[in-house]
Structures are given as structure tokens and as C-alpha cells.
């Protein structure tokens, strides 16, 4: 079965947007293609007429340190992410999350932009970027715009930007400052699909005393969209990361997430059980790293 009729490989973002807007029929952006092509093949996505392969757009391949933030091109592969020294320093949780995805064959082609735009509530790349307060750059026929990453999600597999004429071209998040650290962790089910039962990414900034000056926490699947745990973050701010705080934070987190049972993957009860386990692992290592 032919998955698509036309394959275009634009060199620039403008060209890519044009390829999208002037497509005669259905159109989709791919980079690695690992998600979309499989979904078409498995009958979980309609075949598309035109595929726009953005992996040749050089702007989308860059990882750079700007004045006080890191720019991460959407076309950067998981392999490049885990071996990139800048990201290893500034985006520990992203490196960890992307390192767990697939084998080398998939990591070589699958991109961070693909993971994010797939819009799964528990995308490992997505969740880890959210913990870094990432902004996303979206190109459209009107030019490019930056917006908070969390705002592009509309539901499972659904985004707020217009896939027929817009695409994600890159991300930016604050460079790591002193006493900051991040971490990612997930629990998998040994049977069935390779999607986390629950994953979590955390970022912390410690004050001079080693207390939590600022915290960001994301997890999934904790609702129809990738989830930022705002209430737990707020509670943790200014606290010292000890047992009591952990207990209380676990309770707040359990209340603000919306976990559910998904057939053949996990029960709601089990997900609730994992929530504090991940919270502890993620914040323990984030705090540990912030102290280094």
C-alpha cells in the first residue's frame, strides 16, 4: 500500500509552508516519519496525498545557545539530542526522556518536533520540554510566532495550530542557571505498546540554602493533554525538599492530575500509585543535579 502520492523535500521553512498551503489534497509534515507513517500503515491515520519532509531544512536542525536561552530545532533527532553537549548541560530531562525512546534506528530519524506535534499526552520528549518552560516556534503563511508549548495542545493527537498550513520549527527554553537541575523518569508496562504508563519531568531551582526556589513539573498521561502540575509547583515553591513536603506534594499532585484506566495498559489506581514514586525519583535527581 502506498502511504502517500507525493513526497516533497523543501529546503526552507517558507517553502515548507508553501508546500502545505498549496497542497491539492490532504497533506502532512514528517521529519523522521516514525509516527505518522506507522499510523497510516496500521490504519490508525488516513493515507495522505502529500508528505512534506522537513528534515532537509537547516534552520530546523540547529541547537544553539543564545544569550540566555537554548534554541532547539524541531528537526533535531533524538540521537542528536542525547549526544549534544549543550543539551546534556542545559536540558538534562530532555536528554533523559529522548534517550529512552526506541532503539538507535528510531532515535536516528525520530525528531523532537515529531514527538511534540504528535500531541500524545505522555510523549516523553513533550513532557520533558514542558518541565523546561519551553516555548515553541510555529511557522505559518503569516510568518513565525512564539508561544508557550503547553498552549498548542488541544487533546490527544490534536493541536491548536493549523496542521494544514503551519508547522513547528523549533523550541526555546531558558539556559540552565546556577543551582538548577532537571530530570525525567517513566514506568513502562512490559506487555503492549511502548508508551509510558506514566512519565514525569521536573525542573528545580534551589536557593542559597538549598530550598526549592522554583519548581516545574510535567507528567502524562494525566489528562487529554500533556500536563503541567501548577498546583504542586506552587506548593513546592519555597519549600525544603524533605519527606513531609514530599508527602504533601504527592497529595496535591494526586488531586490535580486526572488519571484514568486505559484498557490493557494501566488502571487508574496503579497510575495513582506510580505518581508519588515518579515524583520522588524525578525531584530527587533534579535536586541532586541542582546541587552540583
Amino acid at each position, binding site marked *: 500500500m502506498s502511504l502517500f502520492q507525493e513526497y516533497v523535500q523543501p529546503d526552507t521553512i517558507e517553502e515548507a509552508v508553501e508546500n502545505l498551503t498549496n497542497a491539492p489534497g490532504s497533506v502532512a509534515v514528517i521529519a523522521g516519519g516514525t509516527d505518522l507513517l506507522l499510523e497510516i500503515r496500521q490504519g490508525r491515520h488516513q493515507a495522505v496525498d502529500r508528505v512534506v519532509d522537513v528534515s532537509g531544512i537547516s534552520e530546523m536542525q540547529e541547537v544553539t545557545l543564545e544569550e540566555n536561552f537554548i534554541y532547539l530545532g524541531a528537526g533535531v533527532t533524538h*540521537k542528536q539530542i542525547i549526544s549534544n553537549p549543550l543539551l546534556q548541560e542545559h536540558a538534562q530531562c530532555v536528554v533523559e526522556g529522548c534517550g529512552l525512546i526506541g532503539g538507535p534506528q528510531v532515535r536516528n530519524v525520530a525528531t523532537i518536533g515529531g514527538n511534540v506535534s504528535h500531541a500524545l499526552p505522555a510523549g516523553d520528549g513533550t513532557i520533558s520540554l514542558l518541565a523546561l518552560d519551553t516555548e515553541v516556534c510555529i511557522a505559518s503563511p503569516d510568518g513565525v510566532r512564539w508561544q508557550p508549548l503547553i498552549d498548542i495542545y488541544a487533546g490527544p493527537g490534536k493541536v491548536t495550530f493549523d496542521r494544514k498550513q503551519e508547522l513547528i520549527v523549533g523550541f526555546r527554553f531558558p539556559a540552565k542557571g546556577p543551582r538548577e537541575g532537571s530530570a525525567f523518569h517513566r514506568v513502562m508496562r512490559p506487555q503492549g*505498546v511502548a508508551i509510558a504508563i506514566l512519565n514525569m519531568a521536573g525542573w528545580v531551582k534551589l536557593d542559597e540554602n538549598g530550598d526549592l526556589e522554583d519548581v516545574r513539573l510535567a507528567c502524562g498521561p494525566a489528562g487529554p493533554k500533556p500536563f503541567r502540575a501548577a498546583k504542586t509547583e506552587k506548593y513546592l515553591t519555597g519549600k525544603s525538599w524533605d519527606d513531609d513536603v514530599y508527602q504533601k506534594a504527592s497529595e496535591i499532585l494526586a488531586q490535580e492530575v486526572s488519571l484514568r484506566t486505559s484498557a490493557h495498559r494501566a488502571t487508574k489506581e496503579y497510575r495513582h500509585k506510580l505518581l508519588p514514586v515518579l515524583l520522588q525519583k524525578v525531584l530527587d535527581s533534579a535536586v541532586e543535579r541542582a546541587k552540583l
Partner: protein
Amino acid sequence: MKSLTFWVNDKKQTLDVEAGEMLSDVLRYRLGLTGTKISCGESECGACTVLVEGEPVLSCNYPVFKAGGKHVTTIEGLAQGDVLHPLQEAFIKNGAVQCGFCTPGQIMTAAALLNSKPDPTDEDIEYALNDTLCRCGTYPAIVNAIHAASDMINHDKPIEFPSYEFGGGLDVVGQVVARPEARQKTTGEAIYTDDIFFPEMLFGSTLRAGIPHGRLIKLDSSKAKKLPGVQAVLTAEDIPGRVNHGLITQDWPALVGVGEKVRYVGDAVVIVAADTLEIAQKALTLIDLEYEPLPVVTNPVDAKGDDSSLVHEEGNLLKHIKVNKGDIKLGFEQAEIIFEDTYYTPSYEHAFMEPECSIARPIDDGGFEVYVGSQIPYADRDQVAAALDLPLEKVRVRGPLIGGGFGGKEDIAGQIHAAMLAQVTGKPVKILYDRQESMLVHPKRHATQIRVKLGLKRDGTLTAAQTELYGDTGAYASLGAKVMGRATTHSTGPYIVPNVKIDCYAMYTNNPPSGAFRGFGALQAAFAIECLMDKVAEELELDPVELRRMNALRTGATTNTGQHLTESVGLLECIDQTQVEMLKFTGGEDPFLSREVEGEPNKRRSWGFAVTFKNTGLGEGAPDNATAEIELLKDGSVEIRISSAEIGQGLVTVLQMITAQELGLPLDKVNVYLSDTDLTPDGGPTTGSRQTYISGNAAKYAAVTLKNAMLASLAEKFNLSPVEIEFKDGIIHVNDQKLSFAEVGELMKGEGRNPKLKYEYVSPKTTPLGEKGDKHFAYSFAAQAVEVEVDLVTGEVRVVRAVGATDVGKAINPLGLQGQVEGGLIMGIGHALTEEFIVENGEIFTDSLSRYRMPSIKHVPEDIKVIIVEDPTTEGPYGGKGVGEISTMPVPPAIVNAVYNACGIRLNRVPIDQDWLALELEKTTR
């Protein structure tokens, strides 16, 4: 069409390609580089791995345009001329090649790893090969091979064969040798069915029922017939001969006709042949079907109920199998304590790496050649001939290499369909299943419900065992009656039990058919009895090893079917040796205590133990024969011919070794030719761990007969007694004279003796259940210990170490044996931890490899100790008996027992559900 230029194995290629083509399509079908394999088509398995600019990618999901201007390296580009890449040599010598279908992907992934990390650690290898799957479970050998290749590349250390504590003893048999087809499997030259192309070949596709139970009331294929490029659209009405197929019971329609019933979602309704696969698939979408739905029978217990809907008009009971020994009432009266529990095993998918493929080709005499990787070529011939209403000799089944079987390639898949389409169109027709169709269509492992009741004296002596089994044989019989028969006789374990009563019900349902799968019912039975035995040991405060030792079958004992065992019962030795090795790991400490894990407060470790036995051969009265033909060829080499299947288990190697051993020939002077119903006599089915014994004996006695014929000619010519003539290292020593095999061949021909003969080996007689006599002519035995680690909070379970002993009679092919036992262990880990074929109300949930997870390299225990016990059986070749199935069987109960010992939660079912386990653990700690 667009032009594309890229480099493949350093050769520039400029081609016109379609937008939707994947790199693998272009490599395989346009450039003929068929070493790149397609196994899952969904980025799960890694078989299609090639390197693009030195980095591994999955070519089956890599749009070919991505490769534009780039350098692609395939498995064919790895060797330098005739000189193999060190990885290729290391894979061969370390036994990292079994069926070979995943081998190119493994080697390419490993090559990329060595490029970036020339001296990788075990962890590096595990990380790199995490998603490159091998269903034969060669992972431990692959790790060894990568290290060996690395040592060769970095330190010029020659790649050597491993050595083992077992085997040996003879010139060839028992020695560590490479499998003869290993080289081609590592270079990409190995030919599997989908690698074969014929001019004008058409592509077939099959329309499946899609509903589990219903009557077909309308079928309109007129639109499909009109689609340009469609060459034939066939329905049940077009079957020239017998509609139904089936290995024992012919109840499975090749196509379901209007007015007939579909009985499972995979039933075939229409077949199409077209110029391309795409057209054939398109044609299927143009066919209108209408069904009258019928109530779905979803499990074997319901199927037996009086109010159940009927799957077949004759009733849902395929077979009620009974075993009675002694007096069950008396046995339980004699018992001082009685235990009873019910166990559940799910359906499992074979997930052989090579999906089914059949090619049928018309030949000049009005007959057909059918190319298919089949475990029973002669049964395919018979069933194709019956369906096409042809005499048997008009169908020639030819077997290319087979990418794994495990029992899943015994039944008909596309053979009949391809032949029907070839008959109508007059052209060769290929039917290749994609992974989803493969998982949908072929028979699975029987899901079972097994109730076990045991009566014992307080000292642990068994007095009675009563079991009741339900097996879900699905919509069609396949080998269900035999499988559940084996479940029946193995359900009271390898124990001496004076009083036995067993009732087993093999039931039809509207689930996919169940049939043969490594362990053949005995695996399910072992799970139930071995879980209960551990519970018994705990209640009686006995050591679980000791309880098994006390009751173990031994020479002089009688089985539950009344068979008196007179020899080759190595169970006690398996138990002893496994225990010794297990205690080495624990430093003598009680292995079954729960131990904390340093630095991991939530984790506990413990060991679990299980034993098992498995018949060799068909048994229970089924005639069990094989005929081998042997010929001394002009060049002095010998060819041994037999229709038995090499599915990765190493049969070619075994037959080559045996023949070479008997004739005093070097291995490379023996060619083994398998699976060609015109040229190779019937070796019988590759099932029941029987080939080494049955076909091995056929080859052995064929070689002996040839040798005797050669001796007769020589003795006559030189006027010597045959005992004065010696066959050694390929030379025949007569007095002081040395003769070559070629010369003796000439001599025989000169005398009018044809140096080509056949030998039919007939196994010792067995009798059906319920009749007096032996049920089986040999049994293998095994003990297995595993150490697991349980996370008390998340419920995650992993196997840390495994120690197992298997009594195989004689280790004929040690390299293959080691790999088969390790692979069996890994499949057992999969059955316990990762695998479950889920069917809901007749619909398949686990419809792809992404939903059916086989063990990957990360599931391999840190330590594996393989112990081989060689308690010979007189009639077996050199004392050998079967080993193909047994190594998987004790693993699931050993793991479940270990989990209990580690965390105190007993499971009555597999696979282990970590979700359930975690929540149960929470209850106990509250």
C-alpha cells in the same frame, strides 16, 4: 515517478521511484538486495536495519527519497569480497545465528555500534540492540559475538568457537561446529520465500472475515474483477477440490462461501491476484460482503455450556481426553493433606520473524510448484493437491529457508490460495502476509484453564492427582486434540503419582485457531502443576527442590499413563545439578528467602524453581517415521535428502554431523538437502521435538547403509573382510591403499550398484491413550531455577539470573544446543513477563508487534547457566532425544514461584501483570 540518485554499498544508483516507496522496497525489489528483511513493517523489530551514512535506520519505514545523495550500506556490503566482516564471522562461530531472519538487522545494528564504540560494554550492546528483536532468542550469543568481533578488530584476537562442558566424545558428533547455512545467513545471501521472484509473477491478497462469527449472506466481487490489473478474483465456488483443510480434522475452509459461516475474524472469503500487491489490495476494498452475525463463543468454558452457540454444527467439543490410573478415590483417602487451585494461561503468538509467504508456480506438466517455508512440506503437498483436485505428484512443495516456526508454520496459510490463483491465471503467484495478517491468521498457543488437585502424605509423597483442563482450540481443530492431549498427560508433572484422574476438554470457540506451539500443551500443564507444587512445599514446610526430588520420575518408575520408564530419566540429575549451581549463586544460603537489594530499598530478590518433562516425537500411537535418501556424488561428496524443516533449530547441522560421523567424512563433504517433496523423502512434521531423533536416525541409518554398500563393493574387489577397511577423514583405507569416496562411487557404479539409497526409520511403537503400552518412546527432562527482582512499589519484575539443566540424552550439536536452550529460556521469560495474545469477544487486540511484545535483549538475565545432562536413550541417535520445546516450559512457573518467594504474592496466571501485583502488594503492606 521521480529520479533518485544514491549510493548503495558504494555503488551509485540512479532510479525512477514512486513517491510512496520505502528504502527497503527499493533495496529488495528493485536492486535485488534481499538480505534486508521485512518482518514487522512497523518499526518494532529492527530486521530491516541498514546504515545510512553509517547510522542505522529502519529501511521499511524510511521513505526512499530521504536516502537521496546518501550512502547506504546493506548486509551485502559488509564483507570485503570473500572475506567476512569480523561481526559475520563472530556471529557464525558464537552461534548467534539460528533461523537467520533477524541476523542481517542484528549485524548491521552491531556494525553501527562498533563504528561509534569500538570496544562496547555489555550495557552499550544492550542499549544499541534494544529494539532489534530475535525470536530465536540468540541475544546471549549476539553479545558474545559482538565482543569477539570487537576483540578481533581492536586487538587482532582470532575469533574462536566457544567451548562447553557437554558434548564431545566422537569425531564429529558432540563437537562444536558452525551451522552450514550460517555464512549465507550472515551475508544476506540466504534465500527465504519472499526473496524469490519469477517473471510475470502476480501478487495475491486475501479478504478476511473481519467478524468472529456470522453467516455470509452476500458476496459481490464484480467491481473488483473490473479493476485494471486484477487477474483473478476467486471465492469458495472456485475451489476445484476439497474445500476444507486441516492436519488431522479437515474442518477449516480454504474460503468461506455464501451461505456458509465464518468462524473467526481471520477466515478467508475472497482471494485476488493482480499485477501488483497494491492493485490486489485495492481490489479487496471493492468487494461487498454481508453477514448475518451469530453469537460469539469467546472461551472454552462457556463453549462447553449447554446454552452455548455452536461453532461447528457437530458441537463445540473437539475432544474429551481422559487419563485414569489407580483409584483416584482411594488416592485422596490415603492423602493426609489435599491442595487444589486453578491456573490460567493465555494465548500466545509465535511471532516468528519471517511472516508467512507462499509462491505457487505452474509447471509444464500441468502441476504446480509451491515455495513455502513450512514445517510439514508433505502435508502441504497433500492439502494443496486435495484442494486443487490434483494427483499428489502434480504438486511439488519446495522449502526455502524458514525464518522461525515454533509450531506456527505447520498449518496451511497461503499455500492453497496461491496455488488456486496460479491455476486460474497460469502465472506464478506470491502471497506474502504482512505482520498483521500473520498475527490474524495462523494458529496460536491454546489458552487454558487448568484445575489441579493434589493429595499428599505429610512427608510430601504424592498419593493422588486430579486435573481438569479446558483448552481453547479456537475456530478450527488444527492440532488442538493432540496439543490438549499433551497438556493432559503432562498435567500431573514429571512425578510418580499412584492414582490419577484427568479430564481435558479441547473446545471450539470463535477465537483464532490454536495449534502447535513450542511446548505443545505441556507448557500450559507445567505452569499449573509447578505453581501448585511450590504452594504445597510451603504448606508442608518442605524445601521446594526436595519435594520435587522425592516425587520425581526416575528409572523404574511408572508415568501417569502407566508407562514403565526403563532408562534415560535424567530428572534427578537435572534437579541436583540445578540446585548445586543455584546454591553457588547464593553462597549456600537458602535461595528461596526474600532478600533485600543493596541501595534499592523497594526491591526484593529471590529464586524460584520448577521441573518439567516433554515427550520426544509424536507418540500416543501415531506412526512416527522418516525416510532419508543418501547419495554418494561424483565429486566424492555425499548428499543427504529429507523433507524435514530447518526452522532455526539446527537440523541441517545435526543431519550433516551425523552423516559425516557415520561415513568418516569431513563436514564440508556432506550436503544436506531438505524440504522438496519431489526430491526428498518424507521426514514427517517438524514438531514434537522429534527431528533429531527421527530424521537423525533416518540419516544415521542411511549413512550406515551407504557405508555398508561401499564396504561390500570394496570387500569384494579387494577380497577383504569389511572390518579391515577403515573410513577416516574422508579417505578409505584399504590395506595400504587410500581410496577417495569418488573412486569408490565409480567402483560401485561400475558394478551396477547405484550409490544412492533410502532408509526409512520407524520409531519404537507407541499406543493411544487408554490402550496398554508406552505412550512415548522417549522423554526429555529439565529443571529450571531463576532469580527475580520485584519492585514492591511499582510491581515491576525482572529476571536477574537463570540456571537450568536439561537432559537431552546426548549433546549432538553443542553450539546449536546451547543456543536453543538459551533461546527457549528467553521465550519462557517472554511468556511470563511480556507476552499475551489478547482477543476480546473474538476480535484481536494484539494485532501488531507493537502490541505483542516479545522479549528483547534487555530481558536477558545477567547470568545464564546452561547445564546439559546426557542420560542416553538406547534407540536415539548416539543416545540423543528431543530438546526443541522443553527449555521454555519450566520458565514461567519458575518465575512466578520466584516472585512469590520475593514478595509473598502468588499468581495463578501469566503474564505477570505488574499493575495487579503492585496493587496486591499495597494491600499486604497496609
